[in-house]
């Protein structure tokens, strides 16, 4: 693969445009026919995924796809730029999205407001893909806000008081995050005179103003990502959202924050300045705290989705840590962990959703016997939990390995220790669930829907996405070429090119 050939192509724009068009289509047709709506819905996400995957041919050829729109409006130019990093995360996002879409057809069958959910679901995809494919900070910020505000509709979907409460918090965080990112963007523009993300390091020199911008970026994205002191919205928002939405929120949307931090650190400031100034150390420390804190907090949660949400926080800690280590292998692990965590956490949330639909169980303590009732679902859950803990050959292991290597490269073995501790804590809060589900008999009175002991799996349309996701945890790692890892390494190398 050769890096650096830029090809002008409208395909990235198309990728973002398709979901928007399908949002409109879903919105128009959902009154007409239930079935038609579903087909349009699925085909929209599928088409997006297909086009996204098609971009892979170019990326694997080493080309960087660039598309500029509204050039005259500089600096408000909408630029898409697909390099390996963008492609990798975006294609995972699109894939997870497609699966979540298939899943939610069944999940939201008896929902109270499907007419809101389905368009928003597609529209948020546009936002997320726009963020991942953006070629300059303006585009990034634009789609970041679009995605964030449509994510609000995920959070408050249930329209319960808790949902609104969580929604308010989410909204607050979104606005704060938005304006902080805005601050960073505008200071960047002021300092650099450009917003282009194509080069490595556009900020000319390190001074107090650029530090302020950096901090603003970090805090802004940290809000979104759930960095330790800024994470409070996350455990509130994830449980109240519908499960596919939680899967997307946790799997994809919070990754935009991490993605943004990577972009800012490596593309806006550049590795040299970061290494010279050592600013990312702040991030590193907070990331470590986040890792430990998330795991510790997850231990004491009884609500399943809440536990998963805290787990997400802890995993975000890994990701940010990988970015902040400023080593190539650490970055590769970071990028790969974005991918792997996206799949793992989506799996976990989708299974949690499946469990909730079928049994109504929301708490870990009630989960006894679920394994027997829903073996496939619980199997997928187990697989994902193991991946999260970091059992080889699951992809969680691969990313953690790479991260640990990165930490060692950076000469900071302490962070590898943090990884280890966190992994152990992961085991401590995931394995009990599995054990409970498989080896404990349900107590009397906890039966919510039907017989807990009878085999009663969810419908295939929900099960298939879960299984595909679970499979993807393994499949890439047992193939001869671990394609995501290769791509991650490649993009990490690209970001380290001087």
């Amino acid at each position, binding site marked *: 693969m050769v890096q650096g050939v830029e090809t002008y192509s409208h395909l990235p724009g198309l990728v973002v445009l398709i979901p928007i068009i399908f949002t409109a289509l879903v919105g128009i047709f959902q009154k007409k026919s239930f079935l038609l709506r579903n087909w349009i819905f699925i085909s929209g996400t599928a088409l997006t995924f297909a086009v996204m995957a098609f971009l892979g041919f170019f990326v694997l050829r080493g080309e960087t796809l660039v598309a500029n729109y*509204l050039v*005259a*409006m500089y600096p*408000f130019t909408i630029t898409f730029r697909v390099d390996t990093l963008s492609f990798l995360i975006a294609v995972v996002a699109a894939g997870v999205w497609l699966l979540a879409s298939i899943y939610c057809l069944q999940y939201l069958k008896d929902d*109270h*407001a499907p*007419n809101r959910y389905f368009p928003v679901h597609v529209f948020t995809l546009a936002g997320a893909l726009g963020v991942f494919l953006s070629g300059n900070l*303006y585009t990034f*910020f*634009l789609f970041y*806000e*679009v995605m964030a*505000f449509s994510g609000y509709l995920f959070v*408050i979907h249930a*329209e319960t008081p808790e949902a*609104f409460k969580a*929604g*308010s918090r989410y*909204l*607050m965080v979104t*606005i*704060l995050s*938005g*304006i*902080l990112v*805005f*601050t960073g963007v*505008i*200071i960047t*523009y*002021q300092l650099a005179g450009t917003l282009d993300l194509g080069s490595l390091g556009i900020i000319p020199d390190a001074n107090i*103003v650029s530090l*302020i911008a950096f901090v603003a970026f970090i805090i802004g994205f940290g809000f979104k990502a759930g960095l330790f002191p800024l994470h409070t919205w996350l455990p509130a928002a994830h449980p109240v959202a519908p499960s596919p939405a939680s899967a997307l929120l946790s799997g994809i949307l919070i990754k935009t924050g991490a993605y943004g931090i990577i972009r800012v650190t490596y593309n806006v400031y550049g590795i040299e300045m970061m290494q010279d100034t050592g600013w990312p150390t702040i991030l590193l420390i907070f990331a470590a705290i986040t890792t430990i804190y998330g795991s510790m907090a997850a231990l004491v949660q009884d609500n399943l989705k809440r536990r998963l949400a805290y787990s997400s926080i802890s995993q975000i800690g890994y990701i940010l840590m990988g970015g902040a280590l400023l080593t190539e292998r650490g970055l590769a692990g970071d990028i790969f962990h974005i991918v792997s965590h996206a799949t793992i956490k989506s799996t976990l949330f989708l299974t949690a959703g499946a469990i909730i639909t079928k049994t109504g169980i929301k708490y870990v303590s009630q989960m006894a016997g679920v394994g027997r009732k829903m073996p496939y679902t619980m199997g997928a859950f187990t697989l994902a939990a193991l991946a999260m803990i970091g059992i080889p050959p699951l992809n969680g292991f691969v990313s953690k390995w790479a991260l640990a290597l990165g930490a060692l490269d950076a000469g900071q073995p302490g962070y590898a220790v943090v990884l280890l501790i966190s992994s152990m804590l992961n085991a401590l809060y995931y394995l009990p669930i599995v054990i409970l589900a498989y080896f404990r008999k349900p107590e009397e009175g906890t039966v919510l829907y039907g017989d807990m002991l009878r085999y009663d799996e969810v419908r295939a349309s929900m099960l298939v996405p879960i299984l595909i996701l679970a499979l993807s945890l393994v499949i890439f790692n047992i193939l001869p070429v671990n394609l995501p890892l290769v791509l991650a390494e490649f993009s990490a190398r690209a970001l380290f090119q001087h």
Partner: protein
Amino acid sequence: MIYQLPVLIVVQLLLGSFIMPIVGRFKNQLIPYISLFLMGLSHVFSIILLFRVVQEGNIHYHLGNWAPPWGIEIVADLLGAYMAVIVTGIGFLVLVFAWRHIQREINYALRGWFYTLVLLIAGAMVGMVITNDLFNMYVMVEIVSLCGPALVAIRNNRLAVEAGFKYLIMIALGSGPILFGIALIYMITGHLNMTFAGQEVINAIQEYPRVALLAQAFFIVGFGVKAALFPLHVWLPDAYSYAPSPSSALLAGLAAKVYIVGLTRVLFNLYGIEMLSTTPLFTILKIMAVAGIIMGSIMALNQKDIKRLVAYSSVAQIGYIFLGLSLVTGFSVTGAVLHILNHALIKSMMFLCCGVIIYQKKTSNIDELGGVGKEFPITMICFGIGAFAMVGIPMLNGFISKWYISLGALEYGGLAGLMYLLVIILSSLLNGLYYLPVLIKAFLGGDSQKETQIDKAPITLILPIVILAAGIIILGLLPFVPLQIASDAAQHLLGQ
């Protein structure tokens, strides 16, 4: 003929208002159509004028063929032509809106006067933005000032009359300082034409520095009262919230902006960039603008009435414009000029949305607006677009101007610049905090089972809102033309 355009726009609007009582004697029903026609015509003229100005530079028009220092000169420059387009365009949309809406808020015996006053105020606003003569500007300011309270009090209930009276008193208190400032400028320069006076002021400042400073202070205070600069805004919430919605849209969207343009012209044309960037008054102005941005937002937070909320948000937005102007950098002035347009669009649209809500629900209390979004999705979506534009979401026009003002703050440099940036950012947050609950309540509150339906309001109510919302989006996506004009106008103002 095209050479006569600048004055024709003004005169035809004024003439239109003069003939209204005569039309009313013979055929009442013609009044809306005539005013719509005239407003539309002047919009077309303004656009032609703008094109002309863009192509060929400023149009200097000498009233009565008297050369400038002796006669009155109209200079249709970019800023003026641009404002004329805004004024007539939004005025047209407001008139379209009012055509069916005023039956809710104005006694039918007074509706003809509403059209008369709208034409008057529009004519005076256009006349004010394109004039190059200090005293002529004062006269036009006074017409606007007189029509404003009348448009508030036309609702003829106790609250509206009280608000109108407060508005009138404050505005009259403001016109005194303006005239005094003109007198002082005349005293030290001997000219009323801004170009000539500006040339003289450079010399006069050496000899009479304090007089020049005092004149500046008077201009700022006078126009500040009229444009509701923060500590002088006391009339604003009542006036905007008790006025009929089309009036509110007109006053908040246009009148306040026009005053700001007047102040801009006076200050920048007379004093020149060097003095302005060093004058202590601009520091005070900056502080006032910042206070306005923060306090306006904070006061908007706990409003129960949707029009009042939007009105308080005006205070904050006007603070933005003043901040942009007082920073006196290329970007910030561009941003301020741009924000004049953007805020005009947004605020007019939001008040018109409030008008639709009042038309449909006969209430403007936020607590009673649960689920309005489901009942009138188009209106509330437009309202949401406006709110998001205020917050500064990209792709909406509010972002662009906010961007430029922030850039200006950074360009201003130093810790102060960062502080202004912080204020702008903080205010975005506050904007979000007070607008989003309304939207959430409108779309998600109330009876969730209510079936979504198309707005029942007449098309003439929906259409202006939709056009304005489309304008917000289009100007957010493609801000090229206004941006170019604004930056050229800013360059012109800054004398570069």
